Structures are given as structure tokens and as C-alpha cells.
């Protein structure tokens, strides 16, 4: 009970489905995780694992129709976001929860000067005149490292990295309690990636913002996150403190992810991908959704859906092997 009170965000049993003519897409299935104030969680998974849908679900921006949040709850600051009205939700969006989208080349409006795009969100959620909003927007531009002389320029006059800085300025303009970053650096080249991540890290500390960092880059997780949720087929399959997860991954999928990172010290000829493909979300396999690709699958994995199990303090795994309390669990305490 006590722990619940201190959580900023508590996502419980969230399921999001898309109802298409071809069938129902089970994009997110019984997903749960929580986040404390100031904490950063990394959500990691392959393309199509449901990471973005989860983020849009929290913002209540899942395209509807065809998408729908079918069950679960999203408690934010003690209030279930799924219970409040749309106008109330609009007061949360951009104000208390902000989102940074993946592709900075397309996420800014091409026909509006960047300063107006920042000032717009400030005007919307704060009292004060348009002049105040522009002033605040200029401060935000400076914070993200863009000179004020460029404020009246349009998005096409900025590079990808600069545009993402503008997007970050928009997201942080109202000092949100929670920032959802959906692969904020995937579309940028590596040096710009590092700059943008550094900026986000600094601003996160400055504004004391909690963050959900969606990525498929474990390097970013190691750099910026406190804890990690590994997603597979719309499920969190492993949830742990960053150090625990990196030192002692438990779920076969997580282990596969780590194994697929090439080791620069060894002269490796071939990459080691996880064999097979993510299952079709309209037709998920029975039992554990990972069993068709799992090297250590047991006959029971075909039938029984594994439940989340706490294998050690704060380390949760959804795998039948771990449910049994296998010998591996004994090692993990020594690692930390």
C-alpha cells in the first residue's frame, strides 16, 4: 500500500487491441509496470512489440477506431487516467505527461514557426498573455541549445538533431511530471544521438521529470535508465533494476537480446540473432508467446501462460522456468 502511494505512474493489466477487418490485433496484453517520481524506465523490445502503443495508451492517444484500450488501469498521481473525461485528459496531455516522438523530421508542423509551436503548449496550460508564453518559449529554446535568433524559423530550416531539440522543448515547456520518449534518437545519427541523450539527461535532472524511454537500443538503457522493462508481443516479460537486468538476465528472450549484441573484443564473423520472428499479433501462440522461438521451451510452455514472478527483490520475470525457482536464481545476489 505504502509503495503504491509513492508511485507516480502505475500501469496495471493494460490491454490494447485494434479491431481490424483481418482480425483483432492484440497489441498490448496485460501489461503492468510502475514508475516512481524522478525515475526513468526503459521499455525495450523489437519492432512491433507494442512499445509505442503502450506509450500512446498512457496518453490516451491510441487511434480509435480501430484501436481501443480494452482493460486495465493507468494510475497517474493517484488518478486513473482511463476514468477521466476527454477535456480533463487534455489538461494532462502536454502539461503533466508529455511525449517525444520518434521522427523529428515529421513531428513538427512545417507551416508554423518553431517558437509558436512551443509557445502554443505554454499558452494552453498556463495562465498569462501570449507575450509571456513567447518569453517562456524563448527560454526553453535556449535551454535546448538553440539560439533565439532562429526562433521565428520554420522546421525545414533546422537539422534533424535541432528539430528533436525543439520537440524536447515543446515536451518540457510545461514542466511535466512524466516524459514519454518514443525512440527519440532512432532517426538521428550517432553523434547527434549522444548530444540529444545528454541534453535529455540534463533536463530530466533539472526538471525532476520521470521518464519512460522507449528504445530498442540497450546502450541507451545502460546510459540513461534506472530500470528496464523488456517487452515481447505486447507483454512485459522481464522487469528489473538496470544493474540486475544487465548482470543477471533471466528471461530467455532477454538473454537472447544480450547475446545478439556483437562483442567487439572477439573477432565474430556472424551476428547471433534470436531465431524466428515476432508472432503475428492477430494470432498469438498459445501458452507463453515466446515459446516458438525459445531454445529452452518445455512442453508446458505450449499450454500455460506464465505469470509475473519476483525472482529476487524488484526483479520480475514472466517465464515458467523461473516460476519453478530454478537453480539460476541463486547466483543473482552475488552479482550486485
Amino acid at each position, binding site marked *: 500500500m505504502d509503495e503504491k502511494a509513492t508511485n507516480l505512474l502505475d500501469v496495471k493489466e493494460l490491454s490494447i487491441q485494434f479491431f481490424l477487418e483481418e482480425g483483432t490485433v492484440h497489441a498490448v496484453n496485460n501489461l503492468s509496470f510502475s514508475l516512481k517520481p524522478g525515475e526513468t524506465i526503459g521499455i525495450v523490445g523489437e519492432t512491433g512489440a507494442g512499445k509505442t502503443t503502450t506509450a500512446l495508451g498512457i496518453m490516451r492517444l491510441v487511434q480509435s477506431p480501430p484501436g481501443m484500450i480494452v482493460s486495465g488501469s493507468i494510475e497517474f498521481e493517484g488518478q486513473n487516467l482511463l476514468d477521466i473525461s476527454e477535456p480533463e485528459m487534455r489538461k494532462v496531455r502536454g502539461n503533466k505527461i508529455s511525449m517525444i516522438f520518434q521522427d523529428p523530421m515529421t*513531428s513538427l*508542423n512545417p507551416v*508554423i514557426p518553431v517558437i509558436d509551436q512551443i509557445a502554443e*503548449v505554454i499558452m494552453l496550460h498556463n495562465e498569462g498573455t501570449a507575450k509571456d508564453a513567447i518569453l517562456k518559449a524563448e527560454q526553453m529554446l535556449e535551454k535546448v541549445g538553440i539560439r533565439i535568433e532562429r526562433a521565428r524559423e520554420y522546421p525545414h530550416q533546422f537539422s534533424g538533431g535541432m528539430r528533436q531539440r525543439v520537440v524536447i522543448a515543446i515536451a518540457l515547456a510545461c514542466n511535466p511530471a512524466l516524459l514519454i520518449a518514443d525512440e527519440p534518437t532512432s532517426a538521428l545519427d550517432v553523434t547527434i544521438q549522444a548530444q540529444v541523450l545528454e541534453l535529455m539527461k540534463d533536463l530530466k535532472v533539472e526538471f525532476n521529470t520521470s521518464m519512460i524511454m522507449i528504445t530498442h537500443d540497450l546502450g541507451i538503457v545502460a546510459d540513461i535508465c534506472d530500470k528496464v522493462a523488456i517487452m515481447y508481443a505486447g507483454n512485459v516479460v522481464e522487469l528489473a533494476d538496470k544493474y540486475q537486468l544487465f548482470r543477471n538476465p533471466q528471461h530467455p528472450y532477454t538473454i537472447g537480446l544480450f547475446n545478439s549484441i556483437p562483442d567487439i573484443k572477439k573477432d565474430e564473423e556472424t551476428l547471433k540473432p534470436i531465431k524466428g520472428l515476432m508472432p503475428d499479433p492477430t494470432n498469438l501462440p498459445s501458452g507463453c508467446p515466446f515459446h516458438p522461438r525459445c531454445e529452452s521451451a518445455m512442453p508446458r510452455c505450449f499450454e500455460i501462460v506464465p505469470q509475473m514472478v519476483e525472482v529476487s527483490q524488484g526483479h520480475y520475470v514472466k517465464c515458467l522456468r523461473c516460476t519453478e525457482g530454478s537453480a539460476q536464481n541463486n547466483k543473482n545476489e552475488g552479482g550486485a
Partner: protein
Amino acid sequence: MHKYILKRLVMMIPVLLGVSFIMFTLSYITPGDPAQIILGEGATQAMIDQVRLDLGLDDPFLVRFVSYVAGVAQLDFGMSWATQRPVSEEIFARFPHTMRLAGMGIALALSVGIPLGILSAIKQYSIFDMGANFISLLGVSIPNFWLGMMLILFFTVNLGWLPATGFATPIQYIMPTIAIASASAAVIMRMTRSSMLECIRQDYVRTARAKGLSERTVIFRHALKNALIPVTTTAGLSFGFLLGGAVLTETIFAIPGLGMFMVSALFTRDWPTAIGGVLLIALSFSFVNLMVDILYAFLDPRIRSQYQ
């Protein structure tokens, strides 16, 4: 921007030269002796020879063309062979009617087409959307002369509400404007719809929603501004076609416009009048295109920076 406009204005000169060259060639190769047509049946050979001499019809083609262009450069389009009055006078007496008809037509088309297009994009696949699509399909397929006749049949013959002819008082504007605007309204509506549908799926619209903006602000401030850019082109083209293609509507409603005048000029082989009219329409078409491009730059900063 000023430089660009100036450049575009200068570019109109070769366009107009080309148009007059084509028209002049057509007049040259069309069978029939203009002098004979001017004088009518029963003219003596001596009279015909005299007229041919006066009009310079025996001069070589290029000489005639150059002297015509030189005249046009001084706003002298020659004399009408049919009425023996200056072509410029004849044309400018009629052009305002055509301009007014086309202008009111495009205004009606825009004010019906854009709102309907936005609505049916926002409510895609709804009953309203299907209805609007059906009506726009009708609008494109119904020929405007038929629509004009049906309007006359219904509102003049049956109900007696509206006058069937003329274009002087507001009540006379109603039916010709509807008849001429229907096809353009349909095209503009469909263009707005598809452009809007594309825009509301864009990432920046999602960003706008993520800011917490109301749906109305998202649509009108963020999506519409982008969606109107391609609509501008369609509207400009429609306006050009209305200017040049109002002949049938003008004929049905007996509007003394340029279209009707030019058709009768062609029938009587009154070439100076026909060429002058075509030149004026080509000029207005070029102007409309220039306006569209300027509007484009106004709407889209990406294009604006290309002009600088």
C-alpha cells in the same frame, strides 16, 4: 519575392507570344477568304481586292504576324471584321461579365467545397461522408449546361422564382453561378477531403494532440493549414477553366460575356476578335497561376524560402 514576381511577369510574354502565334497560324491556314466573308455575297472582285489590300491580307505570313504583335504591344488588337469597331473595345465590354461569373463561381465552389471536404475527412466513412462523396460525384458528372437548363426549368418555368436570363442584378446571378460552380465545387471538395485525410494522419497532428489541444484546434490550426496547400492549385486551375469555359453557361443564360462573343466571332471568321479574346483569356489564366503561386508561398514557408 518581388524579384520572383517580376520574373514571372516577364515570363508571361513568351506565353502570350506563343498563344498569338498559334492562333494566328490557325487563322492563316483556315480556308475561306476573310475579305469575302466581310463583304458578304454579291461583292465584286474589285471590292474584295480593295479590302484585301486594306487589311494587308496579301502580305507574307510573318509580316502580318509581326505587325499584329507590334499592334498588340500598343494594346491595339485591330478592328473587328464583323462590327468594324476596335477589338479591344468589344472585348473589354464583355470581359467583366465573364470575370464576374467566373469569380462568383469559384467563390461559391470554394465556400461549398472546402467545408464539405473538411467535414467528410473528419467523419470519414460516416453517412455524411458517403453522402458528400455521392453529391460530389454527381457534381463532376452532370454537365453544367444540363444543370443550367434544369435550374431554369425548375426555378423559372415551374416556380417562377428566378429570371432565366441576364446577369445584371443579384437575383440574376443565382442560377448561372450555381450552374458554373457545381463541377468545381465537387473537384475542390474531393481535393480538400483527400488532402485533409492525409494531413490528419501526419505525425505533427499527433504532436498537436499530445500537447493537449482540442480537436478543433488540431484540425483548424494544424491540419487545415497544410491541407489547403494542394487545394490552392486545384482552385486556381478551376478558376482558369471557368474563365475560358463559361461559353455554355453564358449561352444558356444569355449572358453577354466573352465566351459567347468569341464563339460567334469564330463562326463568322472574325479572326481579330477571336485572337484578341483568346489572348485575354490566356493572360488572365497566367495571372491566376501567378496568384496561386504567390498564395502557395504565403501558405508554405518551404516554398517561400525557395523563392528568396
